[in-house]
């Protein structure tokens, strides 16, 4: 019975399947193990993929991949219960694009790519732990079965139970993750185009802060698909205990907010989902990204760049999967898979955008954890504008209106937070 492979990949998501496809296409015998019903069935994301990685890895994606809409419009909204202020950006340029998609469909497509390259993809089997002998990872354990390989790529996602059970990562701390809940609401194409001011195949990406999380750190998002919109809430778990209602009621309230209600009117709820997401960048990484006989990629490695407005997971996941494959190919040439040989993976990550960008924004999460950003400042901006636009015969200068609206916040706080945001995001 075939229970030995060159490489075992734990988890059929964007990172694992990219590694699998790259390795299988170079002649490696690859096994991918997925706990869900099929590749992608356990994946959840907000709604968009930045395409720069695909241009290089799968240039044919434009024709083949299940793209929903190309994002041409970006919105950021500071939202209170009865007022909201929005920055609305549009461009006619089409380079360096991003697109909305259903991640489940996209990952299924990646799964087919990996299989047609020769990888064996087995779903419906959860891996329990890595098999470690003499300080080396030599395979995986699932139930009573053990399967062996030269090297294991751990691509199990942010809830890294396999690494935990294998003693290679501590339990997740609430400081480094957020909980996302999401709904997909069906609406017909023309209604979406009209309500969001879009043309055929054009998409919108929207983040909203303040009221959606009851002014706690986190936010809401809305993306347009072809014939559905996705909306969701992300809440930093560190502050979860301060939430006064269950998070699934937050999303309900968000959907019923006057701003959102009219956008989803007449829609039909197709699905809902929830997932953890890493929000602390490199601080969410396990102690080691590689070791004797194993590599960690994607969300499991904490490779998600969260800048509040820009959130990038899939491109980081796929690039880390590609680099893991390159590192394994190099290690194969040397003939060893120990930590020293696999350290090439670390070097390649350093040179790639994965670690370059994550290092650049290494303090982003500390700034974004600041509760004032989601509470005082959201209220301030709306209060100031409300007063400014409310003409009743008393003269209002911009400056004095702002000072009046800022309430208890000191100018020093304001200045310090502004500098922190500008310097770190």
């Amino acid at each position, binding site marked *: 019975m075939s229970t030995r492979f060159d490489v075992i990949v734990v988890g059929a998501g964007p990172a694992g399947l990219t590694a699998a496809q790259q390795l299988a296409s170079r002649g490696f015998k690859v096994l991918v193990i997925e706990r869900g019903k*099929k590749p992608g069935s356990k994946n959840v994301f907000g709604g968009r993929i930045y395409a720069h990685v695909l241009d290089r890895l799968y240039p044919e994606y434009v024709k083949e991949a299940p793209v929903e809409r190309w994002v041409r419009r970006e919105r950021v909204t500071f939202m209170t219960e009865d007022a909201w202020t929005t920055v609305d950006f549009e461009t006619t340029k089409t380079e360096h694009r991003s697109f909305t998609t259903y991640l489940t469909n996209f990952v299924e497509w990646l799964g087919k790519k990996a299989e047609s390259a020769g990888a064996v993809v087995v779903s419906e089997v959860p891996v329990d732990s890595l098999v470690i002998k003499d300080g080396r990872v030599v395979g995986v354990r699932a139930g009573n079965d053990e399967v062996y390989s030269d090297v294991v790529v751990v691509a199990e996602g942010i809830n890294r139970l396999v690494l935990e059970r294998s003693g290679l990562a501590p339990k997740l701390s609430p400081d480094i993750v957020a909980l996302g809940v999401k709904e997909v609401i069906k609406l017909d194409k023309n209604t979406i185009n009209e309500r969001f001011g879009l043309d055929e195949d054009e998409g919108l990406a929207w983040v909203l802060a303040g009221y959606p999380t009851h002014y706690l750190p986190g936010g809401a998002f809305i993306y347009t698909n072809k014939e559905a919109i996705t909306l969701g809430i992300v809440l930093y778990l560190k502050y979860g205990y301060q939430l006064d209602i269950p998070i699934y009621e937050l999303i309900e309230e968000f959907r019923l907010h006057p701003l959102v209600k009219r956008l989803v009117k007449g829609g039909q709820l197709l699905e809902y989902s929830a997932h953890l997401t890493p929000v602390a960048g490199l601080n969410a990484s396990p102690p080691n990204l590689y070791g004797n006989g194993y590599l960690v990629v994607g969300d499991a490695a904490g490779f998600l760049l969260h800048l509040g407005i820009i959130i990038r997971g899939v491109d980081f996941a796929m690039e880390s999967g590609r680099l893991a494959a390159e590192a394994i190919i190099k290690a194969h040439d040397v003939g060893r898979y120990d930590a020293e040989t696999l350290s090439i993976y670390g070097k390649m990550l350093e040179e790639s955008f994965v670690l370059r960008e994550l290092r650049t924004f290494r303090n982003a999460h500390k700034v974004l954890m600041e509760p004032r950003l989601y509470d005082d400042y959201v209220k301030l901006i709306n209060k100031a504008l409300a007063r400014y636009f409310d003409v009743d015969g008393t003269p209002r200068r911009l400056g004095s209106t702002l000072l009046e609206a800022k309430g208890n916040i000191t100018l020093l706080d304001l200045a310090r937070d502004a500098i922190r945001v500008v310097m770190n995001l």
Partner: protein
Amino acid sequence: MHIKSNGSSNIMGGLTIIVPVKAAVPNVTAVRLDPVTHNLVREGVPLMLNPYDRNALEFALRLRDRYGGKVITMSMAPPSGKDFLESTIGMGADEAYLITDRAFAGADTLATSYTIAKSIQKLFPNFDIIVFGEETTDSATAHMPAQVASWLGLPYVYYAIEAEVKLEDRVIRVTRYLEDEGVYETYEYRLPIILSVYKNSNPPRDISLVRKINAKVNGLVKTIDNNVLKLERECIGLRGSPTMVTKIEDAKPIERKRQLFKGDPKEAARWLLENLIKEGVIRL
């Protein structure tokens, strides 16, 4: 405890158990109906193993683990059905057969039961037990066990939860559970027999990684088409299907009366009780 046996150690060679399974549509509400034929449009819809068939497979595997022999799964499905037949091998089935041919497309339960019955007769004429799931999640007719039984001229028992076999006498004692009555009944038959398994019994075992790898890598799911089976065209597929769906209507939700009573809780309770009696919801 169950006695492990690989089938050959048993004096009778154990049981040959067939488990026909179905590719069901996971979410029926997301599937379109063909406006003309009123059939489910299955093209492009992801398929999964009908969940109740897993309980049937577990029932069969327990018998095999106890008495030896082999369990063979079988499905009439499009070529993509290979995936979920691999899962049946992952659970422990010894062999799996995908019965696939364009000639079988568009079959109703009559044509399907004919195809399944004749396939079993041709491929495994000496079978002992055919085990079905109670029903499918996407059409829920529960026709298949009785129809296959009538094609083969065999007895059948629905809602089976467990069975004991006396191999030397070729006798089976089947216990079934009638949910509505809360009654257990035990029957004794001569083999071969056809069973359908109560859906809340025999919780299915996990899929084994090694078995599933083996199924995939070694191509254990065998494909059979009508060149092999040579079934009569008049009896299979759309041509062999007399069922006509004449009309499909959406069930309209019943409008609620939305009556509101404001005031004293005691009066409210009285008001509620009076109205419930008046509407016939409760009787005194």
